[in-house]
C-alpha cells in the first residue's frame, strides 16, 4: 500500500508541511521509544558518552562514503557504502539518545527549532565540539590503509558494543545489540581484504603494510577511559575501554599474522585528544563538507 511516490507518502504523513531538507526530520529514530533515564545515571554523562560513540560512527561513515565512485571495484563501493550506512544508523540513534537527555550544547542555539536534535548535533556543532577518536577522522589513504583502519575501528567497536548490550541504560543497550551483527559483517569483510592484500602481490603487501604502519599509532588513544567513561563504568552504563585491549589486540594480531604482515609494537595507551575535542585540520575540512549545505540554507524545506 503505497502513495504514488515516496515523497507523497512522507508529505501526506506530515500534513503537507515541507520536510527539513538536509536531515531526517520525518523519521526520528527514537520515536515512541521510552527514553526515561534510569535512576542513578547522570544524564549529562550519558549524553556525553552517546556523543562520543555517535561521533565515532558519523565520522567513519563520512570517510567510508568518500570511496563512492573511487573504490577499486563496484561491489566494493557498494560494500563500503553499506558499512557507512549501518554506521550512520548507529550515529543517528546515539545522537538522538544524546539529544533526548538534553546534551545539545551550542548546536541547539545555532539550529532552528524545527531541526531535530540528531541533525542539530550533526550539522550545527563546530569541530572542537566533536568527541570522536583520532582513528576515525584520519584521511583514508589508499585502499589498503582504508581496510586496515576499517578492521581496527570495527574490531574495537564490536568488542565495545558486544559488552554494552548489558548497559544499565536500556536505550543504549538496545542500540548496542542492534549494532553487533552489523559490525560483525564489517570486521569480517575488512579482515578478508587485509588477508587478500597482505598475502597478495609484493605491491599489495607493501601498501597494506604501509597502511598498518600508518594506522597503528592511532590505536594509542582508544584504550584510556575519559572521566565520563570512568564514572559511567562505575554506574554500570559504560565499559572501560582498557577492558577491550586484549580482545582487540588478539583479533588484529591474528589477522595480520595470517596476512603475512609485520605486527608493529602495540602503542602505549594515552588519553584521547579527539575525545577532548582536539582534531586535525583534515577533520575540519571533512566536517565543512558534511555541514556546508545545511549551514548555507538553514531550515530549508522540500
Amino acid at each position, binding site marked *: 500500500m503505497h502513495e504514488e511516490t515516496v515523497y507523497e507518502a512522507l508529505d501526506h504523513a506530515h500534513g503537507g508541511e515541507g520536510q527539513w531538507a538536509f536531515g531526517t526530520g520525518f523519521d526520528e529514530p527514537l520515536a515512541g521509544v521510552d527514553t526515561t533515564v534510569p535512576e542513578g545515571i547522570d544524564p549529562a554523562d550519558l549524553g556525553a558518552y552517546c556523543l562520543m560513540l555517535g561521533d565515532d560512527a558519523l565520522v567513519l561513515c563520512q570517510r567510508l562514503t568518500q570511496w563512492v565512485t573511487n573504490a577499486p571495484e563496484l561491489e566494493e563501493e557498494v560494500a563500503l557504502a553499506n558499512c557507512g550506512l549501518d554506521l550512520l544508523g548507529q550515529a543517528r540513534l546515539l545522537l538522538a539518545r544524546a539529544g533526548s537527555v538534553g546534551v545539545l550544547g551550542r548546536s541547539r542555539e545555532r539550529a532552528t527549532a524545527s531541526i531535530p536534535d540528531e541533525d542539530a548535533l550533526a550539522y550545527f556543532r563546530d569541530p572542537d565540539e566533536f568527541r570522536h577518536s583520532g582513528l576515525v577522522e584520519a584521511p583514508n589513504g589508499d585502499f589498503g590503509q582504508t581496510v586496515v583502519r576499517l578492521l581496527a575501528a570495527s574490531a574495537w567497536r564490536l*568488542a565495545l558494543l558486544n559488552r554494552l548490550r548489558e548497559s544499565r541504560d536500556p536505550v543504549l543497550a538496545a542500540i548496542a545489540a542492534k549494532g553487533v*551483527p552489523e559490525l560483525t*559483517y564489517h570486521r569480517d569483510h575488512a579482515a578478508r581484504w587485509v588477508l587478500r592484500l597482505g598475502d597478495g602481490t609484493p605491491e599489495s603487501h607493501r601498501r597494506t603494510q604501509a597502511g598498518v604502519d600508518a594506522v597503528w599509532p592511532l590505536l594509542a588513544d582508544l584504550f584510556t577511559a575519559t572521566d565520563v567513561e570512568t564514572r559511567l563504568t562505575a554506574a554500570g552504563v559504560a565499559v572501560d575501554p582498557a577492558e577491550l585491549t586484549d580482545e582487540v589486540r588478539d583479533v588484529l594480531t*591474528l589477522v595480520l599474522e595470517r596476512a603475512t604482515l609485520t605486527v608493529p609494537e602495540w602503542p602505549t595507551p594515552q588519553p584521547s585528544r579527539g575525545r577532548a575535542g582536539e582534531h586535525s585540520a583534515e577533520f575540519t575540512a571533512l566536517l565543512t563538507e558534511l555541514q556546508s549545505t545545511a549551514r548555507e540554507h538553514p531550515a530549508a524545506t522540500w
Partner: protein
Amino acid sequence: MAETVTDPELPMLTLADLGVLRDVRDEDGTVVVEITPTYSGCPAMGVMRADLVHALHRAGFADVDVRTVLSPAWSTDWISPAGRRKLAAGGIAPPGDAPVRRTGPVPLQLGPSRRTATCPQCGSADTEEISEFSGTACKAMRRCRVCLEPFEHLKEI
C-alpha cells in the same frame, strides 16, 4: 489493515511477513502500531511509518501512533514462512537460520562465507557469493553456477 502494508524495498512482502510489524493495539481510541528496524541505518523506516499511518487513516482510524521498538533486535528468523516463499518467488533467496548468539567475544570469520543459498531461478544449490553487500543493507549478491544468473540473498542476521 496494518498487516496489508508492504515493505518499501521488498514490495512482495508485507511488514508483517518481514517481522518488522511487532504489535497493533487499541489504546483509548488510538491505534498504536509498533515497528522495529531491520538494520540501524535502514532508510525505509520513514516510509514504512508514513505508509502505515496513511493506510490506517484511509481505513477510518483517525488517531494513529507508530512507535519504534529497538529491543529485541530484529532477526531474519522473524520472516514468516509465507514471507520466505514470496521472497523466492520474487527472485530473492530467503535467509537461512540466523547465527546463534553466544556469550563472549564474537568469533572472527576469515574464510569465505559459509552461507549457502538456493538459486531462485533454477533451484540449484550450487551457488557462490559475489559480495556480502548489495543494493540494500540486508542483502548479499550471489551467482548460480548452473544457470549463471546473478541473484540477491537476504542475509542472515
